């Protein structure tokens, strides 16, 4: 069997120390491993790099521990606005969605744009309409929003600043014991 490789990331920031953070770190490591295994299975069965990337990213999107899809950080208005993209190195074809609020797995919408749309980047309601027409799962905003992310927003809302998802330990859901 020819060799293959898969890498994943779950975000960067000033990951904090402390018991709650360590607990979150342990859980995050498990989800990262799960994502790697999902992508690995695809590659081992002869699947393409694109399919492996999507399989791995979906695991991370479905986990509330990471800032993507379920567990996304909240906007000033208290909702989610998610972005996703994929690119195929063989054909240089690409697809992306931006500012979407209802697509359960934005990475799947990005793939659908790449495969079924003449455009490369669709935004907002148009992207959601396209995703629905492609048969992708549409969910309510409440699916994405966790209690920890609400508390995180509450703390930073009046500061007129923005923040990376893993920055400032006490602002992270982990510190609010929102661990998935």
């Amino acid at each position: 069997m020819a060799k293959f490789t898969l890498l994943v990331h779950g975000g960067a920031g000033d990951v904090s120390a402390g018991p709650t953070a360590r607990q979150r770190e342990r859980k995050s490591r498990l989800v990262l491993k799960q994502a790697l295994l999902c992508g690995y299975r695809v590659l081992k069965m002869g699947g393409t790099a694109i399919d492996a990337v999507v399989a791995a990213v979906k695991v991370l999107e479905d986990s509330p521990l990471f800032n993507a899809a379920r567990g996304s950080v909240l906007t000033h208005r208290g909702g989610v606005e998610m972005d996703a993209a994929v690119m195929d190195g063989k054909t240089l074809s690409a697809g992306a969605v931006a500012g979407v609020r209802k697509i359960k797995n934005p990475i799947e919408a990005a793939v659908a744009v790449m495969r079924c749309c003449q455009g490369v980047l669709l935004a907002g309601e148009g992207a959601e309409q396209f995703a629905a027409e492609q048969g992708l799962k549409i969910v309510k905003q409440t699916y994405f929003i966790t209690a920890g992310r609400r508390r995180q927003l509450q703390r930073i809302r009046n500061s007129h600043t923005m923040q990376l998802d893993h920055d400032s330990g006490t602002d992270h859901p982990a510190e609010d014991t929102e661990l998935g």
Partner: protein
Amino acid sequence: TVGAVALDQYGNLAAGTSTGGLVNKRFGRIGDSPIIGAGTYADNGSVAVSATGTGESFIRSVCAHEIAARVKYCGFSVGRAATEVTKTVIPALGGRGGVIALDHAGRFAMPYVTRGMYRGLIRSNGQSQVWVFD
């Protein structure tokens, strides 16, 4: 922000990134993830890249494509290209974050300029590893 890059058994590369963006963002702010060449890029002739961090600096440096270009046109290794861009270009623009990058031979780099980055690797022999700090 989450992402993945892969090299399949046919020698093809791919990259994907997904994010909720920054906490408390306003005015329809879009980050680097969906901007092809900024936060996400793949080219069999160079590398596949997925980025995470302060998106504006990744957009302004066209970060993912910059790494690919250094590999493709300067002959840099994936490690040198990814590390230079992540640890020099991005901070010079006031940005922070990290990337995962993979070339057609399975060589990879995962540099970052934050305290930590959640990241992992699996090879065709099934051996996997995950890291948060170094």
